[in-house]
């Protein structure tokens, strides 16, 4: 049943998952994490469809049992039902493929041989699995609840690596599509873009930190889905690059939040603030993560976005490019909220004691921050690996000159020069501020805003970090997004299925004589029918 084969793509994804899981391994739930790592290994090194599916399902239910330590039953049910829904769709696609291909081996899969209707149904079924796993809008309820209710470190694993399984599945199964049958992937591109816009605005209006990060990973995965749906060499590199960056960023952010929760025991913006001077190192690490997350030119985050924008330009998808840019720009709002809400502003009034965060939380953060900075200096470092994967998947090789120069269809930029220039400017401004800081007057308490001629009452908390998203609701377009709840659709569906089950179950509460009557009725009707 199990056939394995090492591929470059497998090495990349398994390397990432190894990095994430080993970095977050704790002693008490080690067994389940190793089982999870095993199932990821099975997925990423599977050479037959059956092995891929076995790994996929084992990842599903081992994740279920880790999540079941902390999550509520309704979230667990939602998690397992969405995941199994995707998995059964994948199983249907595998059975369908087998009936046409005759063999289960991945190397024999050639989608061009399929008749059109079979191609569309197989792609649709696999896409269901991909969409559910990466939490595309509509199938994202389980993502948000599970990330919030998982233990802090496991939500890091969930967001950093488990969500990438869908990406791997798409690359392995659907990337080699015949050119003329692309209508499904047009839809997929738009779905990815819409997801990122909606998820970004939902993220901004969240009060719990982990829900914000959950919506943010949905948004980032939306970019990757859009990149993949273009099926073009640079778009594939953009997707792979963004996968690596997203794994590192989410690992950093979630562990950072875990450290904050370990220190303060709080997980809402409204209960946090002003921790800059308590844990400056965490603040610096978070800022590095934010810069990469927002895709600003400095750190690695920009490279993935840069490739995605140029690929979209090359494919002449202007409207799609505009949407992606809009959502990526507005993404900066929740990045700023993350920094401001936790570290800047003033301490809340309850002054609960602060604990010291465990040392082991710093290691993964430092590791991923270092990698992000490295990718900032040498943006084209992974390009040879990505181009080899692209060639393996049947695309043309990418041009590669030096690790520090990232080329794309519309020009290239030198990361090293950029980073060093920024470093010099940063040091200059820091020195300037340091001298000015000595003459600045320290505010006695949170209420001292005499420079604007107003003295607020004692109870007022001026730290508006948590309220940042509220006024967004007044904008018509965003209010429309925030009000739409796909959860209501799934709950309504659950209600209908529940009522149908109670109705059907009443059949099994019939009296004995009614059962006999039905059988006799059936006998007579069939007899009359058959004569």
């Amino acid at each position, binding site marked *: 049943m199990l056939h394995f084969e090492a591929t470059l793509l497998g090495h990349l994804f398994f390397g990432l998952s190894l990095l994430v899981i080993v970095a977050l391994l704790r002693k008490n739930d080690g067994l389940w994490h190793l089982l999870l790592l095993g199932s990821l290994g099975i997925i990423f090194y599977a050479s037959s469809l059956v092995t891929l599916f076995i790994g996929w399902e084992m990842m599903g239910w081992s994740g279920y049992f880790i999540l079941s330590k902390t999550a509520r039953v309704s979230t667990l049910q939602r998690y397992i039902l969405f995941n199994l829904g995707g998995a059964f769709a994948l199983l249907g696609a595998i059975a369908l493929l087998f009936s046409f291909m005759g063999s289960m081996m991945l190397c024999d899969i050639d989608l061009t041989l399929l008749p059109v209707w079979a191609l569309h149904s197989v792609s649709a079924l696999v896409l269901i699995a991909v969409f559910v796993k990466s939490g595309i809008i509509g199938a994202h309820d389980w993502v948000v609840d599970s990330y919030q209710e998982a233990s802090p470190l496991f939500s890091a694993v969930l967001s950093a690596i488990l969500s990438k399984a869908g990406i791997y599945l798409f690359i392995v199964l659907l990337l080699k599509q015949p050119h003329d049958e692309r209508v499904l992937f047009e839809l997929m591109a738009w779905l990815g873009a819409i997801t990122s816009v909606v998820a970004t605005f939902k993220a901004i209006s969240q009060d719990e930190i982990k829900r914000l990060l959950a919506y943010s990973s949905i948004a980032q995965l939306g970019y990757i889905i859009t990149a993949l749906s273009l099926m073009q060499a640079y778009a594939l590199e953009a997707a792979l690059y963004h996968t690596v960056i997203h794994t590192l960023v989410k690992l950093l952010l979630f562990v950072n939040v875990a450290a904050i929760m370990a220190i303060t025991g709080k997980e809402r913006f409204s209960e946090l603030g002003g921790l800059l001077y308590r844990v400056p190192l965490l603040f610096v690490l978070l800022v590095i993560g934010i810069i990469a997350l927002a895709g600003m030119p400095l750190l690695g985050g920009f490279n993935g976005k840069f490739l995605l924008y140029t690929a979209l330009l090359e494919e002449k998808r202007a409207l799609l490019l505009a949407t992606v840019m809009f959502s990526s720009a507005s993404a900066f709002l929740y990045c700023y909220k993350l920094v401001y809400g936790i570290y800047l502003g003033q301490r809340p009034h309850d002054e609960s004691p602060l604990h010291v965060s465990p040392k082991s939380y710093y290691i993964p953060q430092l590791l991923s921050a270092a990698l992000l900075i490295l990718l900032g200096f040498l943006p084209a470092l992974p390009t040879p690996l990505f181009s080899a994967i692209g060639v393996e998947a049947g695309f043309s090789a990418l041009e590669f000159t030096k690790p520090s120069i990232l080329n794309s269809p519309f020009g290239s930029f030198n990361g090293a020069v950029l980073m060093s220039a920024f470093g010099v400017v940063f040091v200059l401004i820091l020195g300037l501020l340091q001298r000015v800081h000595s003459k600045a007057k320290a505010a006695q308490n949170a209420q001292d805003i005499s420079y604007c001629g107003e003295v607020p009452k004692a109870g007022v908390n001026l730290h508006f970090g948590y309220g940042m998203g509220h006024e967004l609701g007044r904008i018509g377009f965003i209010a429309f997004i925030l009000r739409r709840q796909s959860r209501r659709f799934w709950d309504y569906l659950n209600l209908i299925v529940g009522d149908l089950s109670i109705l059907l*179950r009443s059949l099994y*509460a019939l*009296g*004995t*004589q009614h059962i*006999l*009557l039905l059988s*006799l009725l059936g006998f007579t009707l069939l007899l009359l029918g058959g004569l």
Partner: protein
Amino acid sequence: MFDSLHPLITMISLAIFGVALLGVLVKKNLFKIFLAFSVAESALFLFFIGNHYTPGLKAPIAADGITRFDPAFMVDPLPQAMILTTIVIGIAVSALGLSMVIRYYKLTGHMRIDKMDELGEEQ
């Protein structure tokens, strides 16, 4: 009137079978249901043996003068053996059923089939 008794026997036995089925489906008392089942079984036996019997044939036993077993003047012994077995099975089922009904009556105080509500979802 008939060239052979078979149509008559079939009609009578199926009529009894119908009445017995009606008894099973309508009667509320458990005892009567089990009795209706044994009536239905006997109706089937009547139908089966009746259709095997043609007037003038003797029982398949070599006694008082008959020494040769010849199908020309002897009835087919196999249905008799089958019915002998099914009768005993019929007794066995009704004896077990009635003993359970008695015990059920002692436990719940009623023997009505439409009031048997111990099983189901609410319990």
